[in-house]
């Protein structure tokens, strides 16, 4: 039974970004640029998804030496299935098109 995640336009945008390349680990800033979500919106969503078991996190060594390690995210196998269900769910209320930042 998946933990309840509210189907908001922001959640949808984030899930779509995470589903883009399912097995690839993503950085917070990259997700922010792709979804157009500010850090104040993005991180509470990531926290909620992680606490609900949808998201895996890990610390990765930096690509350039001297820089701090980065936190990375990807959907868990359960998260992949639950997110597909969530996206296929009939919308409960009026949903706006997900905000996707121009690249």
């Amino acid at each position, binding site marked *: 039974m998946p933990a309840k995640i509210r189907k908001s336009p922001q959640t949808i945008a984030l899930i779509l970004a995470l589903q883009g390349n399912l097995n690839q680990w993503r950085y917070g800033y990259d997700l922010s640029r792709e979804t157009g979500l500010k850090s104040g919106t993005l*991180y509470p969503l990531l*926290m909620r998804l992680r606490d609900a078991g949808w998201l895996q996190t890990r610390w990765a060594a930096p690509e350039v030496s001297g820089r701090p390690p*980065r936190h990375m995210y990807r959907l868990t196998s359960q998260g992949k299935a639950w997110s597909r269900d969530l996206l296929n769910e009939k919308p409960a209320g009026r949903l706006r098109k997900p905000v996707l930042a121009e690249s």
Partner: protein
Amino acid sequence: MRRFQMNSARRAALSLLMRAVNALPSTERDWARAIVTELEYVRGFGAAVQWLAGGVTVMIGATIRNSWGAQDRRNARAAAIGFSLLLIPGYFIAAALLNQVGVSFFFLPIEHWLSHPAEAKVFNVISPAVLLGTLLVVLVLNAASLLHFGKDQECGGRAVSVIQLRLQFWNLAAILLSFVFTAALLGYAFLENFVPRS
């Protein structure tokens, strides 16, 4: 050269922030570190400030949520809503009092309503309902957040009803202010509407 200075300033800020992050409770530390380290990769000064401001907001919110229990949050929410609602009668009372001492600026919008008979009629019906209704909502909301009704068992196994009263400063302050404002409004209404018999 300028780029070097910008990077050095950013590194110095990052190092300071990392020290601040280490002071956070362990549950928030990982996420705070994640937000701060990403700052190194955010392009542009404005975007970096925005990123940081969002991160600080997230951390303050998370710290408050995790350090306060559910009941504390309920009390805080009731007090916050209460004080926001108190602004409505508070404005009316402050404007009327200031008008009495010659500062009419805040009373002008109210006076504008009262100067037109049709609008004054509507105002006289709506304003008591809004002002006293608001105060009643503040009172009920905050009193409900302080009172807890439950069931308990005595030594003999007999079930008893229990009423618990929490003493929370901000909720009590909201309740007290709602009483003071109610007294002020009723006093004002009394003075405005009744004249001594001759």
